[in-house]
């Protein structure tokens, strides 16, 4: 069964693309054939992987070129549908009734040979965003820890709930993932507390703020290539020195457990 997960938050700058690219490459490294679809006209998914932006999504949904001819193999087991400014045209095309937005990804992904599909959603509630929520069975919400964080999470949850209520989507929230976590900042820890009080067990351990995440993008490398030892990957050191807390490594392990995915690599 193909698992489809939307990585979404209507607020920008919360770490959606870094999360999507890092998790997608992490899954691929475990031998899990993964497809990452860029729904943002900024086309940053390709750039994060050291590739050029290209009109992959436009070709797939507007020109109706088959998926296998549109995907780019970014790394072993990691395939992407890149995006660029033509993604804006895709939205207009869908909005004009060019294709049923509800079924657009269902049709495009039908029979696709991937174990996991990730959508990197744009920070806006548009027709592509809705289509991604409709097609996904899981929703991961990265969120920054500032005073608007809970608002942002609520907004996307309301959007998902509306689609679920209308019977258009069967999406379930897998986790709220706090990003840019600064252990020493009072505001950050206070907002983590607020999120945990509101969303309980769904708030997973945070991703530490780490300059290496930004550096990796500049080098066109993922965090698994550029800085596997960095805090945003392995988490921050506990005060008692008993290992790392949070980070993308533990997030990836949780996602694999939740999706019952097994690594086919043995290193």
């Amino acid at each position, binding site marked *: 069964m193909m698992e489809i997960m939307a990585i979404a938050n209507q607020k920008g700058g919360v770490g959606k693309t870094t999360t999507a690219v890092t998790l997608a490459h992490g899954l691929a490294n475990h031998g899990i054939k993964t497809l990452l679809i860029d729904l943002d006209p900024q086309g940053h998914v390709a750039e994060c992987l050291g590739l050029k932006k290209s009109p992959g999504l436009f070709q797939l949904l507007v020109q109706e070129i088959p998926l296998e001819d549109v995907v780019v193999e970014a790394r072993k087991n990691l395939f992407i549908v890149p995006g660029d400014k033509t993604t804006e045209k895709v939205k207009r095309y869908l909005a004009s009734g060019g294709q049923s937005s509800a079924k657009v990804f269902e049709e495009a992904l039908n029979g696709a040979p991937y174990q996991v599909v990730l959508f990197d959603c744009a920070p806006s509630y548009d027709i592509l965003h809705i289509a991604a929520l409709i097609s996904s069975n899981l929703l991961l919400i990265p969120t920054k820890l500032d005073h608007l964080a809970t608002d942002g999470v609520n907004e996307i949850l309301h959007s998902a709930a509306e689609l679920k209520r209308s019977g258009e989507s069967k*999406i*379930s*929230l897998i986790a709220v993932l706090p990003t840019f976590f600064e252990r020493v900042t009072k505001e950050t820890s206070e907002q*983590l507390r607020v999120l945990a009080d509101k969303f309980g067990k769904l708030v997973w*351990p945070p991703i530490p703020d780490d300059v290496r995440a930004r550096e990796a993008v500049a080098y066109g490398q993922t965090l698994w290539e550029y800085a596997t030892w960095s805090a945003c990957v392995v988490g921050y050191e*506990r005060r008692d020195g008993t290992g790392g*807390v949070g980070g993308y490594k533990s997030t990836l392990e949780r996602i694999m457990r939740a999706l019952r995915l097994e690594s086919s690599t043995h290193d």
Partner: protein
Amino acid sequence: MTKKSSGEERRDALDPTTADILQELAERDEQRSMTEAERREHKKAKERLKRRVNWDLPVDIKERVQAIADEESVPQSQLAAWLLSRGFESLGQTDDERHEILMPFKSPSSSPRYDFNLSVD
């Protein structure tokens, strides 16, 4: 049944690692610039907070708790705790028994956070 401390109950409601982080942060915050008296007050307030809960209940249940607590001259919180502690016994001894007992009261939920709603009728 083993009784859990309020700290353990909070851990159950949160992801255990997130709960650990929050506890570590809380301890750090507490240690910052407090007088002895403030520290004592803070500790008391924290203990009270651990026992506090905010649930949405059907109005008739809330009113019945209020009325019985008034008649018996006991705090509503203690009456609610008394009722809940006995309510656990009706959920059977194992996870499977509890699942079976609750199943007829469950209906699908449209919330992305929960799979079911639970009817109290």
